[in-house]
């Protein structure tokens, strides 16, 4: 069982959350000028690293806020949790 520390609710089991994927993607700032390549990169391409992975989890059965998690996907060990704008890697 993965245990995630929601900054609002505290430590909770993974089944209170819905996985919301890679947290390193940034939506093109200006849709009017973004190229097809920018959208392709944002919508479809993933680094998919084997190691620490920045990701969002949605606390659907709790406060319903999004939580950012740094998790080692080779062991499932959670390394850090915070609000969506937290810089978890810098805190490591």
């Amino acid at each position: 069982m993965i245990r995630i520390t929601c900054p609002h609710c505290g430590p909770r089991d993974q089944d209170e959350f819905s996985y919301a994927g890679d947290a390193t993607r940034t939506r093109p700032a200006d849709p009017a000028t973004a190229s097809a390549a920018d959208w392709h990169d944002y919508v479809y391409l993933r680094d998919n690293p084997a190691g620490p992975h920045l990701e969002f989890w949605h606390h659907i059965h709790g406060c319903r806020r999004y939580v950012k998690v740094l998790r080692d996907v080779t062991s499932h060990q959670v390394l850090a949790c915070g609000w969506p704008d937290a810089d978890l890697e810098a805190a490591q």
Partner: protein
Amino acid sequence: MAEYSVFSLIREGLSGHKGWIRAWRDPEPKKSYDVIIIGGGGHGLATAYYLARNHGITNVAVVEKGWIGGGNVGRNTTIVRSNYMLDGNAHFYEHSLKLWEGLSRDLNYNVMFSQRGVLNLGHCDGQMDAFARRGNLMRLNGIDAELLDREGVRKLYPHLDYSKDARWPIYGGLLQARGGTARHDAVAWGFARGADRRGVDILQNCEVTGFERDGDRITGVKTSRGTIGCGRVGMAVAGNTSRVAAMLGLKLPIESHVLQAFVSEPLKPLIDGVVTYGAGHFYISQSDKGGLVLGGDIDFHNSYAQRGNLPVVENVMANGLAMMPYLSRVRILRSWGGIMDMSMDGSPIISKTPVDNLYLNAGWCYGGFKATPGSGYAFAHTIAHDAPHETNREMGLERFETGYLLDEGGKGPTPKLH
């Protein structure tokens, strides 16, 4: 190398089985090969086999970081079917199913392909309508499909929950009678032996660690057994696709997720074919040794760990019990996980790449085992001709840029849902 036959079996049976010879060689890597296939799973081995068999390209190496068959090809629940709707998928999987039908003979190796039927259960009117539509589309594509009502299902599987209290009543089902199961290890070994007999070198304990490049071309593959020169390179590393691609600076529309599977204690014959639950994600069949083989959803988060967590175990078992309550008295013997290459539209990629002489085979999600022969066939063609075979024309990497996606389930770019 000796053909396997009933005569060789009798001869060896009467002489203490001392005359069998190894099924494939264990060669040292040559300085270079015309084609290097990275990944000794089902797809890599099948590709090497069809390169030699269909295209006469035999100066080929399959490089595998562990042992062949140690990846997903040896970890899956062995369901084989071709019940797809979209043209880009349907003809590919049907071609693969046709290859399965002649595979043991073609390989001179018994892959134990058993066409025991794949039945999807339906639990409401809407689902039965969707099944009718899928079945009709399949039949229009020349693929067998049969819509069963509740009594038709009951005739085939009398032990499901038909009671008044069933959590989701069974309304009927969609049957593909030509679908079934195969022996997963035998598929890896059969293709390995077939490729080896045609001159392909299978290099085990040979991990790819990097590439030597000259501009847009790969000139050599760096491995734990030294650098090997190459003409063309085919990559078929399933859950490790993004890692190997990153060695070339390529970023792909793939996430790696873990899928679990389970086997029960052996029982007397109980489940004839493959049955899937329609009110949740659950599939079950019975192996020839009697164990029930079952599985459900992926774990829904990125993973390279080859083992899953308890929430999905609980979910899989709950689905199973809803469909067949008597499963509560069956003990589970083993469970394990494999790393799936989940693509962004749920369909595979067999494609050329931005690197001139690199070809990509990936994105198999839950369903690459059934694709093994068809994938090897199409990928070998793509590598040999530098152009896709008719069966993988719509499986190119460029579809994510052009928007011509193959999203069979209409779920969008959310890999965990495919």
